[in-house]
């Protein structure tokens, strides 16, 4: 059964002539701490093509956030290189959008001002940006809440604001680190559907960190499985479903088959460790 699911272990990306949009080349991360060195990422090596939605799936503590921070230029690599759109990553970039586990909204700013915060920092607030903020907030159903403060919103609403903020700059690459893991199961389904909709509309390249198998399979074109430490990308699984994705898809046998396959791969990782 497993053999039916197309899987390629790291590095074996589809062969094309053009250089990939993003390449993570033999990247390693070691944190030097007072208690000794912690090898957060042992070896990550993969490529991503433009427009792909890639989920990175793994148990907590395996180094997923570290990997995302390195791709986003927020942490230096200890070894290896990361290139995006032809340039090596040396720090945060304007063409990236960042969405973190906590919404991290500014509590003293309104919803609208939070969404426009990246623009404000670039001294570039224009009518166009306001229009775009409106479009994004309407898409996630929060335009009527634009003047509210974050504390007046639920956790799911706050995270939707954070997603709008991540998209306001029209980034080419969207980096999401477990954006929905603090939410309850029902809001999480809502958020997944909302993100899938946004995706169909804007079609960015995305790295989506998660420890939820179903979430990864529902949203992604490809799932990278990260093993428990020493953490490597152990599997690279293509998700064959068409877009737009529908919630009902989660009830199909094929969906559950892929989820089961991924679960077994993660468990294998446990046993090896």
């Amino acid at each position, binding site marked *: 059964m497993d053999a039916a699911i197309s899987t390629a272990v790291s590095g074996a990306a589809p062969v094309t002539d053009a250089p990939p949009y993003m390449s993570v080349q033999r990247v390693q991360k070691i944190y030097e701490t007072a208690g000794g060195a912690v090898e957060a990422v042992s070896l990550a090596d993969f490529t991503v093509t433009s427009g792909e939605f890639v989920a990175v799936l793994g148990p907590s503590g395996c180094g997923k956030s570290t990997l995302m921070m390195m791709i*986003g230029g927020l942490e230096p690599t200890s070894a290896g290189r990361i290139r995006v759109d032809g340039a090596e990553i040396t720090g*945060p970039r304007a063409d990236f959008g960042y969405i973190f586990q*906590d919404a*991290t909204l500014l509590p*003293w*700013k309104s919803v609208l001002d939070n969404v426009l915060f990246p623009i404000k*920092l670039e001294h570039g607030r224009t009518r166009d940006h306001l229009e775009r903020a409106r479009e994004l907030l309407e898409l996630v159903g929060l335009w009527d809440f634009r003047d509210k403060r974050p504390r007046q919103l639920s956790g799911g609403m706050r995270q939707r604001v954070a997603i709008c903020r991540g998209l306001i700059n029209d980034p080419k690459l969207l980096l999401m680190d477990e954006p929905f893991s603090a939410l309850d199961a029902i809001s999480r389904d809502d958020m997944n559907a909302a993100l899938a909709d946004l995706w169909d509309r804007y079609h960015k390249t995305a790295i989506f960190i998660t420890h939820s198998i179903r979430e990864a399979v529902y949203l992604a074109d490809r799932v990278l499985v990260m093993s428990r430490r020493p953490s490597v990308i152990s599997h690279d699984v293509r998700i064959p479903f068409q877009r737009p994705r529908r919630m009902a898809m989660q009830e199909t046998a094929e969906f559950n088959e892929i989820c089961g396959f991924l679960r077994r791969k993660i468990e294998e990782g446990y046993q090896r460790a």
Partner: protein
Amino acid sequence: MTATSDGARKKPLLPTGVLAGYLRQILLPVAAALVVLVAWEVSVRVLNVSPVLLPPPSMILERLQELFFPLLLKHAIPTMWESVIAFLISSALGIALAGFLSSSTLLREAFYPNVVLFQLIPKIALAPLFIVWLGIGSQSRLAFSVFISFFPVVIATLAGLDNVDRDLLRLCRALRASEWQTFREVRLPHAIPYVFSGMKIATTFAIIGVIVGEFITSQAGLGYLILFASAQAETALILAAILVLCAFGLVFYGLVAIAETVTRTRFGA
């Protein structure tokens, strides 16, 4: 019949409910204070205590009424002016120094322990030094008052600037905000409640500074009046002056609290 049956249910001593809750919060302490004042009045009269030792509240009120315009107000004005000016200077200085110290780890590591250590000095003991340095005019009182009232502002502001959620700072980094932008957009708004808590303490300290200065050397002010009245054994006048001082302190604190509410609704911090 049980105690909880309708007929036997006791009426509460004070009315309940939201509005009644607020009323209660005001009425209860006022009633308690009145009880103490009445007990004071009665016992001083019954025990025939000399008014030089402890005048009854009625006598203090009488003095207040009689001398408010001719004497007390005249002396209150310079004290209030100097306190307010000292407070404004120490707030500005305190916030600026805190911003300066938080701008670099090196600066903070070098100076913060010294600021804390300085905080521990019984600063009132240094008051005479200010007279040596600046003479007996109002500038020495002002300088001393600023000196003792700006520490709480520095310490509180620094705490506010530094206690910022690390996630927010990471967001600023991801959005490539400059140090200055991070300060203006995140650290400073986050620090506003802290700054105000420091400034509220500073109102009290500024008044203390001015009064101590007036004790040491001055020709006017409530501190001077208190010292003068005590030399005359005018205990009721001393207490009347203290009453005026209390009223001023309350209004001063209240104005800062209002400024805080206005700023916080403006920034929503």
